[in-house]
């Protein structure tokens, strides 16, 4: 019994309401990585908190599969559920929400013991782009990932993050402009397969 992952929201909800387990698996497989990544931006510690929050959301969805009230897209519903669960946890722990409107330093691997001339190449383009995404300011990166991974619309992102649509658009534009110009300035040429020389990007 299989359920196509690319089914529409309506098809998913209808199948879930009937208790279709394959539909639940497909839903999980499709949305889990993006949701986990989003949850991590809200719940860094303890290190299993993000996984737990997302798992709980899916458990609740299954438990209430016959009564899901989804106004809008399924993606937005899931991301919002994760946000609420994360906030609940933070309240329980009486921690303050990481204020991600501040520009946090992006995490860099500890390179103190590695010499620059040993750096050979980026394994593949996606790794280089992934590296560039990590350099974006936290909020900009979050907006980009919600659009890219979750497929949320600008309105949905604005609602989720409680910022204006104009803000979302500005972040998205900045991200695209930075990624495109940095990638192509570094000498990447889509027609040729060759080793990329690392330029200092800071």
């Amino acid at each position, binding site marked *: 019994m299989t359920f196509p992952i690319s089914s529409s929201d309506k098809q998913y909800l209808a199948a879930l309401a009937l208790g279709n387990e394959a539909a639940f698996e497909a839903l999980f*497989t499709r949305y*889990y*990585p993006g949701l986990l990544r989003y949850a991590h931006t809200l719940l860094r510690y*303890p*290190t299993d908190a993000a996984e737990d929050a997302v798992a709980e959301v899916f458990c609740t969805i299954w438990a209430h599969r016959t009564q899901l009230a989804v106004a809008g897209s399924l993606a937005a519903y899931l991301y919002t559920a994760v946000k609420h669960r994360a906030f609940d946890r933070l309240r329980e722990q009486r921690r303050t929400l990481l204020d991600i409107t501040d520009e946090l330093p992006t995490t860099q691997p500890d390179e103190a013991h590695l010499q620059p001339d040993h750096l050979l190449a980026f394994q593949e383009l996606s790794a280089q782009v992934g590296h560039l995404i990590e350099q974006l300011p936290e909020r900009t990166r979050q907006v980009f990932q919600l659009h*890219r991974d979750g*497929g949320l619309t600008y309105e949905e992102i604005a609602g989720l993050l409680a910022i204006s649509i104009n803000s979302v658009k500005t972040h998205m534009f900045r991200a*695209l*402009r930075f990624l495109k110009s940095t*990638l192509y300035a570094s000498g990447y040429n889509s027609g040729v397969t060759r080793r990329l020389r690392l330029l200092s990007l800071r």
Partner: protein
Amino acid sequence: MEQEDLYLLIARYLARQTSSDENAQLATWVAQSPENERTFEQLKTVWQASQLPATPAATAAALRRVQARLALPTVPEPAAPPMRGWRLRLARPYQLAAILVLLVSALAGTYFYARPVPALAYQVYRAPAGQPQRLRLADGSVVTLAPQSQLRYPARFAGASREVYLEGEAFFEVSKDPRRPFRVHSGAWVTQVLGTKFNVSAVPGARQLAVSLVEGKVQVTDRQGKYLLTPGQQLRADVATGRIYRQAFDHHQVLAWRSNQLVFKNEKLADVANQLERRYGVKLVFADTATAEVRLWATFDNEPLPRVLGALRQAGGLAYHREGQVIYLRRVAAQTTND
């Protein structure tokens, strides 16, 4: 069209959120000049390359945990055909074990990894937590598998090469056979040797991949190129950034696991958690950044877990409490310095 509106339109198009009017508008703009077309293609490349990397194993594991909580049947459900016909042919129990292993690994392969299933009959061996395990392959090669690592290998090598598939970490002592190169597949890397001794570290979820050459000669291939190593050299990739380094390596540190030692030289707890988890079959959870960034200088020689945790508490100022196989760690005091 304003540059910002344009970029956003293109992004929405790539996210399949545009109306047919907008698609027509975009198509017209792209057709207007080669420069427009180039802009579009470049943004499309960025978009495609920024796709969230799939983690089929991690997602599947998380799904199984959720299904267990909900008391749903977990995937995959191996088909259980009536075994009557088979039972007649199987004289000895170990043959049955080999066939079941093949069935499970083939299902796992098609469901999660979509790797081509080789025509040879492959077996899968997974080392349990605790001790490294030695395997002897059909050609006489010896593979020492780290705890909780997994090797897929054929019962017999046939054809022009010897191919095995590794998930985790292993030390290879490969029999020389010039006619048949020995190749280790680990994620996106293929390490090719003729006959030699080397270590491959390709643990799912780890922050680094590495091939370390002790003796002989290897060539590591990935999607973009080939890298040659000489003895004493290591090829290392940082998973988060994709950067690849070639450098000398500390033999003791890289190979200590074979004698069941754990060697940490000024490494952050978060970076070595993986090794501890595999060695003892536990899961470590850190309470906060301060805990995750505690640095360790230590050598643990076949110590039981309580001793290791005791050392972490004393030297690292880490408090812990254990619930079954999960260990919760929290830094409570400044680290003591060595006298």
